[in-house]
């Protein structure tokens, strides 16, 4: 049931896109937002729950101080104002992922508001205005039983695990991002990528999109080209990889354009994102805010951070993204283009960490932007989540530098890393990838190659040293690539000249 689309180019000819991004960041506090239950990922179902996060009668929430501090740090890093005084609110809705029948959130008094950040895409800077960053709690996880794929539609009943319910979340909401035009999908991706790096630098979250600790909702609308207005938007929920964010914006631009171009109008609604097919489908009509019947949470007292506290947190902030990029480029000696490609691949932090683990800047860049970027692209997995860590990459390069493996064998080591076969050293040992430096084994292979290619050997004896290439190739083939080509050449010339 795919819907009509215009091409991306047709969409841009007729309309201007506006995007809004809502990013949920799950904090890495030890305990939950309003109770002392642990927050570890992957625990057995319903083993990290208590009367408060199960919404049992009489349980009273108490706010986690570190979560408030993390919220303020995120707000400050996004150049937000920090509220002098703010409250939590109940967002009432009936859905079994919140056992209380409401989510404790913030409504018209967010802890942080009116901020901005700057995103760089292909050498151009886009300013993203931040409307607010507010505190709330995560929901439980539902498993839908009876349907074909675990999705909601067609499910017979649902099984709920509340381990995640009550884990602190910060929701960061942008104002409409306009004027990005054809770069809109890439700007959306770059914003979330930069936000992730910032979250890592702040140390407030695991920042793992594949585990759901950063999740994005993508709002998109189109307005007639040049009108400067805002059209009706749709909200695509739970777009959970950087690549999908780019694809979802692109898809919605094409879908809206086809509807509007055909004289139709956009229904303001929630859309579901389908990772496998790259399309969205209709969710539900968006409730009006009033339907949530927000009201101030009577069980929690207001949060009124002192200005001393705020200034203390401000003084401890990591450097802003644009300054960080400039500093790293100068430290690494990257050209503008190299830097742009590194940022564009979402690999800035990875390259930085690889260098910190002992690699040279150029080697770090080489692996992340060739082998690993290609792998990310081929598999549709974010580059940070391939299962290859900066420490692994530095270790691979160290093996290359030591002459234990060459670049070609290094690619096989990466294959082992993708498959989770252990550390690079273990993979080299287990797969038998180390270059053979034993002259005995090499000498035998050289003798075999000479015997098998008497014509070539004769040419070399006559002084045509350039012909050695054919023999080197034969030796490398016999050694399955695990030889140092320079040493092979020396051995051939020793034997024949």
């Amino acid at each position: 049931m795919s819907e009509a689309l215009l091409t991306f180019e047709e969409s841009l000819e007729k309309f201007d896109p506006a995007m809004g991004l809502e990013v949920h960041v799950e904090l890495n506090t030890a305990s939950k937002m309003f109770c002392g239950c642990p927050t570890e990922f992957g625990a057995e179902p319903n083993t990290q729950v208590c009367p408060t996060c199960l919404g049992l009668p009489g349980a009273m929430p108490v706010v986690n101080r570190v979560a408030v501090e993390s919220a303020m740090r995120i707000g400050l890093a996004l150049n937000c104002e920090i509220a002098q005084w703010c409250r939590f609110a109940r967002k009432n809705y009936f859905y079994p992922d919140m056992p209380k029948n409401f989510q404790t959130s913030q409504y018209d008094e967010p802890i942080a508001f009116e901020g901005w950040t700057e995103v760089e895409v292909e050498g151009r800077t886009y300013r993203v205005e931040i409307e607010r960053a507010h505190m709330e709690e995560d929901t439980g996880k539902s498993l839908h039983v009876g349907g074909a794929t675990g999705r909601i539609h067609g499910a017979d009943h649902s099984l709920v695990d509340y381990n995640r319910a009550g884990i602190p979340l910060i929701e960061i909401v942008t104002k409409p991002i306009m004027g990005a035009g054809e770069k809109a999908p890439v700007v959306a991706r770059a914003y979330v990528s930069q936000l992730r790096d910032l979250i890592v630098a702040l140390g407030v979250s695991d920042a793992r999109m594949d585990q759901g600790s950063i999740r994005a909702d993508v709002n998109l609308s189109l307005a007639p080209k040049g009108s400067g207005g805002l059209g009706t938007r749709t909200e695509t929920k739970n777009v959970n990889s950087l690549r999908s964010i780019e694809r979802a914006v692109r898809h919605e631009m094409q879908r809206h354009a086809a509807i509007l171009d055909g004289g139709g109008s956009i229904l303001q609604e929630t859309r579901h994102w389908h990772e496998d097919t790259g399309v969205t489908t209709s969710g539900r009509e968006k409730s009006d805010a009033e339907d949530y019947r927000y009201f101030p949470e009577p069980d929690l007292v207001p949060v009124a951070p002192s200005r001393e506290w705020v200034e203390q947190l401000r003084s401890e902030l990591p450097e802003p993204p644009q300054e960080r990029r400039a500093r790293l480029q100068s430290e690494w000696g990257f050209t503008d283009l190299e830097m742009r490609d590194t940022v564009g691949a979402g690999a800035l932090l990875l390259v930085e960490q690889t260098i910190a683990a002992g690699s040279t800047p150029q080697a770090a860049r080489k692996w992340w932007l060739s082998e690993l970027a290609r792998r990310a692209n081929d598999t549709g997995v974010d580059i940070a989540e391939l299962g290859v860590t900066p420490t692994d990459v530095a270790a691979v390069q160290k093996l290359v530098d030591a002459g234990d493996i060459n670049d070609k064998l290094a690619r096989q080591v990466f294959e082992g890393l993708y498959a989770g076969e252990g550390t690079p050293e273990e993979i080299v040992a287990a797969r038998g990838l180390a270059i053979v430096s034993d002259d005995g084994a090499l000498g035998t292979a050289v003798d075999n190659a000479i015997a098998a290619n008497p014509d070539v050997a004769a040419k070399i004896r006559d002084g045509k040293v350039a012909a050695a290439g054919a023999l080197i190739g034969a030796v490398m083939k016999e050694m399955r690539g695990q030889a140092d080509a320079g040493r092979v050449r020396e051995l051939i010339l020793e034997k024949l000249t």
Partner: protein
Amino acid sequence: MPDTPATITRDEVAHLANLARIDLSDAELDHLAPQLSVILESVAAINEVASADVPPTSHPLPLTNVFRDDVVTPCLTAEEALSGAPESEQQRFSVPRILGEEA
């Protein structure tokens, strides 16, 4: 939060009942809507004394910044957590299918 009007219509009561998943018959709506209006009107009398310079309050005590340290405390076991659940399966709460009216 928007100001609450001092009266409530029958349609508004029906809408709220639907949001709160309370099944009200026509007779109950006819009966309840005027009663709720009377309650709202009574509460609205507060507006006469609470002028713009009196901030609304959501908590009777003048407290702010009541926090707990980020320390893990013991949880319930899964058996305890599920002990009050009408149905459970795979150590999870079993609930009727979701989204029926929303799909």
